[in-house]
């Protein structure tokens, strides 16, 4: 679109380069498609065929049994306690709830850090915002969990106000969607993303608007936001898929299956199945009974792959939606 000249495309050198570029891109696409082919084919195989080594490339007797099974299971059984629609709605609530709070808050902060702060203050704020990325999340798991129980006390039981029998007032988000949404409101990764993008916006554009006397919020809304649609699209998509796919944290903080997201329902099954046999005999004995329950319902690798595909579909839809916004890049910069 912009690198290759508009005229003279038929030059032999350019044509070779062009063909090479297209070939490289197509090869990458081919590689990306292999896992998808693999998933779909697996979902169409029978249980013994899945265990075949090396795997068969084309299913010998394609069957939709696994798909049928998953839909039967999802209609009502012990494996999924709620109708799929319930899990789906819960996931939507969490994902869109997070986006609705996180995108404005994170982008405001990134904007302020990029355009309103200067010098040492900007550097320290930057480190303050991304510093928590530098610690593995597993370490803060327990304190954060305790905070969902009794914010702001990171202990299981709330202390009394000194000298009284009354407990300190606390905020309890545990076992509600808030417990998933609130810790994700500030996203350090999205902060980096937004900051990088806002840094590319020339100060002169903003300065011009300031001179006109526009408030910073108006500048953000009327100038920066329209230019930033692509990065908002990417950030929304990445955060959506992150929340949609996360299952360990929701599993910890939401005990009530009626409030659980889709990922919990699906990964619960996959997790039980995947962890079997990778551990010691002691463990396999214990998970044995779990697997028996799944197997009695007829679930095997093929069924799990179906679940995996179902889990990915909303992410895929979100991807397509955000792609359209991503490609709406406003070529505003040439104005000056």
């Amino acid at each position, binding site marked *: 679109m912009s690198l290759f000249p508009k005229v003279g495309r038929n030059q032999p050198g350019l044509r070779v380069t062009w063909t090479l*570029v297209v070939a490289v*891109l197509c090869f990458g696409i081919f590689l990306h498609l292999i896992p998808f082919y*693999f*998933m779909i084919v697996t979902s169409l195989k029978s249980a013994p065929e899945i265990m075949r080594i090396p795997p068969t490339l084309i299913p010998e007797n394609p069957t939709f049994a696994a798909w049928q099974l998953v839909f039967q299971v999802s209609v009502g059984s012990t494996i999924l306690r709620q109708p799929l629609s319930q899990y789906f709605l819960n996931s939507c609530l969490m994902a869109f709830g997070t986006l609705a709070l996180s995108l404005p808050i994170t982008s405001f902060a990134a904007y302020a850090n990029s355009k*309103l702060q200067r010098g040492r203050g900007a550097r320290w704020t930057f480190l303050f915002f991304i510093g928590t990325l530098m610690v593995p999340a597993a370490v803060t798991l327990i*304190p954060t969990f305790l905070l969902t129980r009794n914010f702001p006390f990171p202990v299981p039981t709330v202390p009394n106000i000194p000298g009284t029998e009354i407990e300190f007032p606390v905020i309890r988000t545990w076992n509600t969607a808030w417990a998933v949404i609130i810790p994700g409101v*500030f996203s350090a990764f999205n902060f980096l993303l937004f900051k990088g993008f806002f840094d590319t916006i020339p100060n002169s554009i903003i300065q011009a608007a300031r001179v006109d006397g526009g408030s910073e919020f108006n500048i953000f809304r009327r100038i920066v936001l*329209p230019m930033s649609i692509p990065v908002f699209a*990417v950030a929304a998509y990445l955060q959506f898929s992150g929340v949609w796919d996360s299952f360990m944290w929701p599993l910890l903080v939401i005990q009530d299956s009626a409030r659980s997201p889709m990922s919990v329902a699906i990964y619960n099954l996959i997790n039980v199945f995947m962890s079997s046999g990778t551990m010691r005999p002691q463990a396999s004995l214990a998970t044995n009974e779990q697997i028996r329950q799944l197997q009695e319902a007829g679930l095997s690798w093929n069924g799990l792959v179906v679940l995996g595909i179902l889990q990915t579909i909303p992410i895929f839809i979100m991807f397509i939606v955000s792609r359209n916004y991503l490609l709406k890049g406003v070529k505003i910069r040439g104005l000056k």
Partner: protein
Amino acid sequence: MAEQTLAPGASVEESQPAAVVEVKLTRRSRIEKWAFLIPALLFQLSWGWYPLIVAFLLSMTDARPRGPISWTGFQSYTRVWADPLVGSAFRVTLIYAALSIVLTFLIPIIVAILLMEMKPRVMRWMMVLWFLPLSGVASTIMWRYVYNTDFGFFQWIAMDVLGLPRQGFLTSADQVLFWLIFPGILMFGPGLIYMAGLQSIPQSYYEAAEIEGAGLWRKIWTISLPRLRPIIVMMLTFAIIGSLQVFDWPKLMTEGGPGGASRTVVMYMFDLLNSLRYSDATALAIFLFILIMAITITYRILFKEDPDA
């Protein structure tokens, strides 16, 4: 389009002296600056730093999950420091991070630049196929199969196509880090982000360069990359932080083997957590934090944000 986005009449009023404007704006935007920052600061403080500080305090105790906790001072830190496996985990992590940044960081940028060259219709499709959201489970199973030393695809290429001797791939202590990183060369890259950034480069820049007779590489070198620079700087920040904390991919693929050759710091931290040694694990995480913080600050000093951006 520009007229629509900019507020009507958003042109510079020439009559006002520039110095006066500066002062007036600073006072006013100072309040707004804090209005922009405060919500995020509060959330980051209460759900980001606060749990971290609690974890840090717990690392100075024996951190028993139930019952009274007793203060142990820096015992966890000295214990972790003396552990022979900690040193090797740091070595593995640094090599992994360096290798993965060298091998995988640039490719998504190039892919994004090249994708933008396609005709709009073609690009829309290529983009979908290239960045299709991928299930982690599926790709793990697939790559384990590809790397299998007995019947895997790569072994077939090595022995039957290239006529090499039997290769170890993930089972070779010397090669394991390379092969762990290899899938990331073409897959899993953050190319979408660069595509978002490339959207905002004005077409006219390229047209002007073309008139001056600039070729393909020159345009990439003098326009695309410099305009992307702030985004690249941020993504590199994240790549450094992220790759120093890598654990799930090697965990799934190799369990840290063979012989600990792919056991990263965070993987060893999980070993400690699984032994119910919460305070030791936190102590190890704090060591890692110090390392990452040092690297990040050094890097930020070396690569200042583009001053005239």
